[in-house]
């Protein structure tokens, strides 16, 4: 079995999409993460759900975890509203890490190893420059067990 047998079409967002829209897309379709495309349509980042959440957390709370504790419940409940027009580009991590991207010929073991190494619940499958879709963690686990 190869990656091409497990790949499913996967929704994408662009660098200039608002973070709020990205979060909504994930919530509505219960996605494990998102694929971010650049202007040319090539994936620049694969964000696991937890990292999309990170985009919504105020930067000062990421810089200093103690500050998340001092914020009162009323404000803490609505922190996502402060996002405003922030785009995915503005909220991307500074140092890009290895992307969970593979080709359609990758074996299940390759995909699993890549997922584990990059801590990503989805792996994008590219045929050359063309994005075919993604293999999700749950699809992979169903196949393995």
């Amino acid at each position, binding site marked *: 079995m190869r990656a091409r047998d497990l790949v499913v079409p996967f929704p994408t967002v662009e660098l200039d999409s608002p973070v709020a829209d990205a979060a909504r897309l994930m919530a509505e379709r219960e996605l494990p993460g998102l694929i971010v495309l650049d202007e040319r349509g090539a994936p620049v980042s694969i964000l696991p759900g937890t990292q999309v959440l990170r985009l919504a957390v105020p*930067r000062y709370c990421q810089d200093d975890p103690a500050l998340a504790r001092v914020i009162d419940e009323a404000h803490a409940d609505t922190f996502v509203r402060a996002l405003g027009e922030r785009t995915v580009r503005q909220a991307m991590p500074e140092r890009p890490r290895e992307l969970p991207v593979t080709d359609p010929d990758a074996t299940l073991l390759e995909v699993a190893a890549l997922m584990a190494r990059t801590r990503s619940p989805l792996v994008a499958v590219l045929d050359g420059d063309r994005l075919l879709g993604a293999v999700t963690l749950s699809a992979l686990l169903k196949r393995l067990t």
Partner: protein
Amino acid sequence: MTVTAWVATIVFVATYVLIATEKVHRVKAALGGAAIMLLIHATAAGSAFFSQESGVDWNVVFLLLGMMIIVGVLRQTGVFEYLAIWAAKRARGRPFRLMVLLLVITALASALLDNVTTVLLIAPVTFLVCERLALPVAPFLIAEAMASNIGGTATLVGDPPNIIIASRAGLTFNDFLVHLTPLVIVLTAVFVGLCRLLFRKAFRYDPERAAEIMQLDERAAIQDKVMLVQSLSVLGVVIAAFVLHPVLHYEPSVVALLGAGLLVLVTKITTDDALREVEWPTLVFFAGLFVMVGALVETGVIAQVSRAAAEATAGRPGVTAMVLLWASAGLSAIVDNIPYVATMSPIVADLAHHVPGGDHNVLWWALALGADLGGNATAVGASANVVILGIAERNGVRISFWQFTKYGLVVTAVTVALCVPYLWLRYLL
């Protein structure tokens, strides 16, 4: 001068340019420079590793190491966030009062910790507080970077240039307390007044917003009270040991290392965790720098420069001190003050012998004041400024080079000008 001396000078200047322009990472540049100095026999292992005058100053390296460990543990306790939010609530949302309290906390913290750590701690909480009060955050951040540079001038451990000066000049923690701290208190007060003028447009008071600041819970910042008490106690012991040097006779580097060891011993922090907080590249940078400057000492370049400087100022301590003060301020505005002071220290040590009469330490104080305060002049003058601009940008607030520098030039001119009467009245009359 010999051929080696000339080559060493060229290598040194080239390395300096690379460090100042950041064309190459500063650690790479300093180590590269040191490597070439060793290759051309401008210096050798014997002097580089073991000489007091021309080798790595291990007092400086180990004092920094010890303080980095202590500060690394202290910053995890949440005590700074607690203080800053407490201050914001005490200010009842009044913008200028808030700025005064934040600046005083920053200056005080910088006197004991290094400046970069201080601004790393104060900047995120400033974002939170300013967001609540709908205040422009840039003026607060700029003022905090400057307060940390001014506050750091006050003590031996406040700013790395002071650590180098103390070790090279044989000055104690108490010398700094007696000679620089009183002046820095005055400078901080004047600086706070200046901020009232410089940032007057930023102080918009909104009573509704002010009420929201009272909902923050500063006590939640502290997660582990036991560790807080332990680390503050160790910091207290360390400061006491610095002050009690005339009685205990422990060098500052030894005190810092013992303090760091004690902290690891009494808290639940593991050795691994403690060592992870150390900025190893900075320590290696210092070592490389010392070897490079040592090569200039070994080849006689430094002696030549100081002789020329002594002749130029005709051996008059007053003129020498003033030139040193203003030239240090000017140069530190452009280049990192750590390599600057590392280079100037052997020159000033020589000058102190050549210049007749008076209190010779005045030259050291002029160097310290010029180098530390000069860092405020431009956005790249001190590490704290660079770090603040970086944090601001990550949070979506761009502070341009000139936005910082237009305030920095005013603050530096005023603070350095105030040093002039202080040095004259106290040491040169």
